[in-house]
């Protein structure tokens, strides 16, 4: 069983699908992850379970991967993170990123209706699509992901699996945007719909991982000095980016109103 601690989670789940269900019972949602290269031992430690929960989880996984054998759960290394998180809320710089997620989540929640209403014929329809793609490129990527990649992640070991996963998600999102732009230029409604839907699925899962796992873990590692630095650096990026979040909030609000109107039949 000890050998599995150093294996990628996707590999383990592929071999033993019930491990996904076991992890789900502890709110560890590795199943839908697109990458799945995180090692089992890192996944268990990063979720900061209680000692009892961790023991129980490891025993259940041990039973799943080596059925019929009776053995104690493998010993995990001493936790690198302090046991109970003293800080219950996000620190101000991470709270800022979580607040930016809220607007992105509002946008991706609208994508199914947006896809249904895709209009590549009229100028107005094309403008709406361009605005949607711009929301992804400018707000979600240039304004938000850049803060993570160019600032936040640099405070941590970027070779860590969880950060590799985040980088890969960003790269995949960028390739989907390219596909959207190409599809729009070629009037390819099918590819445009598929790319938007894939983006929605990718980002929903990506944001959940960040809000629920990555940021709380990071907050427990950051010193007060680093929190203050991050806050000041994020504020500088906001000021210098030339991107006004209000513009994108307006876009989302207009879409929400439009689709609400349609739902009400008015």
């Amino acid at each position, binding site marked *: 069983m000890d050998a599995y601690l150093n294996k990628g989670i996707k590999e383990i789940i592929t071999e033993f699908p019930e491990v996904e269900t076991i992890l789900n019972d502890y709110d560890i949602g590795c199943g839908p992850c697109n990458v799945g290269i995180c090692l089992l031992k890192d996944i268990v430690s990063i979720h900061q379970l209680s000692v009892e929960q961790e023991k129980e989880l490891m025993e259940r996984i041990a039973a799943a991967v080596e059925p019929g054998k009776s053995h104690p759960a493998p010993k995990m290394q001493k936790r690198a993170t302090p046991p109970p998180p003293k*800080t*219950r*809320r996000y620190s*101000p710089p991470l709270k800022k990123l979580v607040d930016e997620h809220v607007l992105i989540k509002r946008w991706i929640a609208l994508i199914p209706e947006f896809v249904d209403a895709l209009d590549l014929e009229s100028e107005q329809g094309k403008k709406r699509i361009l605005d949607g793609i711009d929301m992804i490129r400018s707000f979600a990527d240039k304004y938000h992901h850049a803060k993570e990649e160019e600032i936040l992640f640099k405070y941590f070991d970027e070779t860590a699996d969880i950060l590799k996963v985040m980088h890969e998600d960003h790269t995949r999102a960028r390739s989907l945007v390219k596909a959207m732009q190409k599809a729009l230029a070629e009037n390819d409604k099918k590819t445009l719909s598929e790319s938007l839907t894939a983006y929605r699925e990718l980002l929903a899962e990506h944001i959940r991982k960040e809000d629920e796992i990555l940021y709380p873990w990071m907050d427990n590692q950051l010193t*007060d*000095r680093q*929190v203050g630095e991050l806050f*000041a650096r994020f504020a500088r990026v906001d000021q210098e980016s030339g991107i006004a979040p209000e513009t994108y909030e307006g876009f989302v609000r207009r879409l929400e109103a439009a689709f609400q109107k349609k739902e009400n039949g008015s």
Partner: protein
Amino acid sequence: MTTFEGCPGSRTMQFKTSEENPMEGPAGKIRSQLAQWPIQMHLINPAAPYYQGADVLLTADCVAYALGDFHREYLKGKSLAIACPKLDEGQSVYTEKIRAWFEDAKINTLTVLIMEVPCCMGLLQLARQAAEASKRKVPIKYVVVGVQGDVLKEEWAAA
């Protein structure tokens, strides 16, 4: 003839930095992590060099007596000011000094340490008022200490 340098109790002094001041002293004694003087809110100068860009600790008077690990866990590496929100007079000066930390000294973070007793919340309130009055925003953390020295709460309040 010697130059008059003012009251020794309020003369600005900077001691060793936290890097130069290890926790352990001779024969296992714990070294003080205080790196400056003065510390009382009426006596401090918010423009003193040790507040520039610093992580500042604003502590209710009683905290250091209640919290056993105050020096090691909280004071180390930080600049300090102390006050009593219940008994001190002229607290509008405090609000102005905290605002000056934010805007002029450009401090990095402010941590407010208070006791669990209700009137101690006044110190956090002062910090919040100063933050509202300040154009420059800074992360503010608050720590509530129980009368038996336990840390009851530690949270980022706002920025």
